[in-house]
């Protein structure tokens, strides 16, 4: 779609491009899915731009300094990630949406809404903070039982990092225990957002192939008819909402 979050006050244009993002806790398999989607879209001939959470070259050094030296509080953690997101919105997302490209994001503003609120940040404030974000065409939420995700994570990465494990908020001194409690809080926040933001829920316990098939069939419905750039027109929003699968409520956050 192009367009912006319902809360937005900075930019309210619609753009010809499409924006798909994947959300979910670590170990939900979302990165694998968006990588497969990326390849498929490219093979289909679409112009695709990929943008990853926490990757702005302007902000990275500050974030990693803050993490390494443990300088970050819930509020500064939230703000520095919003700054990173702003840089990517200004350089990797909006210009490409304007150009009519398909933008794929591994994590989006919902990651901040889940993590920051799990850290104690005001839900209202963090939603305001991200008001400049372009609204996604479809936001996929990979729902996975906590123990399945934990198995996948802990297998691949034995030592958990300080902020990753939520050790900064003192849920437990034991990193693994803290990680579990923190992830559980994040899951609660994601579940709350399913209705609020009309997230498209994916069953992340299904096989990779099944999930990818489903994702492609959903994405297909929203793709511009012409693959070459410059031909796209902003998509009318009302139609979009009716076609959207898994709508659970008409209520929008305000």
């Amino acid at each position, binding site marked *: 779609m192009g367009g912006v979050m319902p809360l937005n*006050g900075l930019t309210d244009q619609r753009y010809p491009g499409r924006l798909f993002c994947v959300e979910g806790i670590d170990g939900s398999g979302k990165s694998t899915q968006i990588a497969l989607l990326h390849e498929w879209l490219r093979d289909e001939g679409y112009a695709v731009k990929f943008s990853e959470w926490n990757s*702005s070259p302007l*902000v990275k050094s500050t974030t990693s300094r803050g993490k390494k030296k443990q300088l970050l*509080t819930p509020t*500064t953690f939230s*703000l520095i990630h919003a700054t990173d997101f*702003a840089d990517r919105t200004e*350089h990797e997302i909006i210009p490409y949406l304007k150009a009519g490209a398909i933008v794929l994001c591994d994590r989006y503003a919902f990651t901040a809404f889940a993590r920051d609120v799990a850290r104690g940040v005001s839900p209202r404030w963090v939603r305001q903070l991200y008001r400049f974000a372009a609204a996604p065409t479809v936001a996929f939420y990979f729902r996975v039982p906590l123990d399945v995700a934990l198995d996948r994570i802990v297998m691949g990465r034995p030592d958990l990092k300080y902020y990753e494990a939520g050790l900064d908020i003192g849920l437990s001194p034991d990193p693994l225990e803290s990680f579990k409690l923190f992830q559980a809080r994040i899951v609660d926040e994601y579940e709350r957002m399913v209705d609020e933001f009309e997230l498209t829920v994916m069953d992340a316990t299904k096989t990779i192939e099944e999930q990818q098939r489903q994702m492609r069939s959903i994405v297909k419905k929203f793709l511009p008819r012409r693959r070459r750039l410059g031909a796209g027109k902003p998509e009318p929003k009302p139609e979009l909402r009716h076609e959207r699968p898994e709508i659970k409520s008409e209520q929008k956050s305000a």
Partner: protein
Amino acid sequence: MKRLQFFADPPANLENVGEIRGKLVVVEGPDGVGRSTQIAELKRWLERRGSAVIETGFTRSTLAGKGIKLAKQGHTLGSITLFLYYATDFADIVEGQIIPGLRSGYIILADRYIYSAIARAVVRGADPEWIREVYGFAPVPDAVLYLKIGLNGLIERTINSGKGFNYWESGMDLRLGNDMFDSFKEYQTRVLAQFDRMSEEYGFQTIDAERPVDEVADDLRAAIDRVLTLA
């Protein structure tokens, strides 16, 4: 002693700061009006009187000060990124310097506050409501001493200070004129208009900064005296 007030929700996990003994005094005004000189003088004056003072200001945070300075040297810094980078820096100052200082009974002299951040952001197209929301975690100061100056006075000071017109203070990222001077005039005019608007909204104490430095300093001291005698 009084409870610390915030513009909106306090920073996370600082909801129960409790009673504070210190005072937060903000000195605001446009670039080049002479804030830093005045604040340095005030600090010496207060210390002579036996008060402990913390002087703080933008880009002085441990977390983000360096990052902002680096980002401003390049040519890829977008407006929203700039606003939020400053907000990050400011939050670190609030949590790391201002709140702990107030709790320990310091007088905090803030060289610029959310008002400068709001003025700069609004001039660059930010939604005025949005940027105020972003800064909702800021403590409400005990006084905002606004050094008010007209455009001509500002131009004179900018040249006489030896610093001259610089890229950001001329709003060259907005290119509001053909050169630094033209852009400076337009940019600072817009910034001053924002300060004037906020002066009522937030109840600034306006100090005429067109006058000699000593007279301005006298007014600042008198204003601070009033803040300190208020229990």
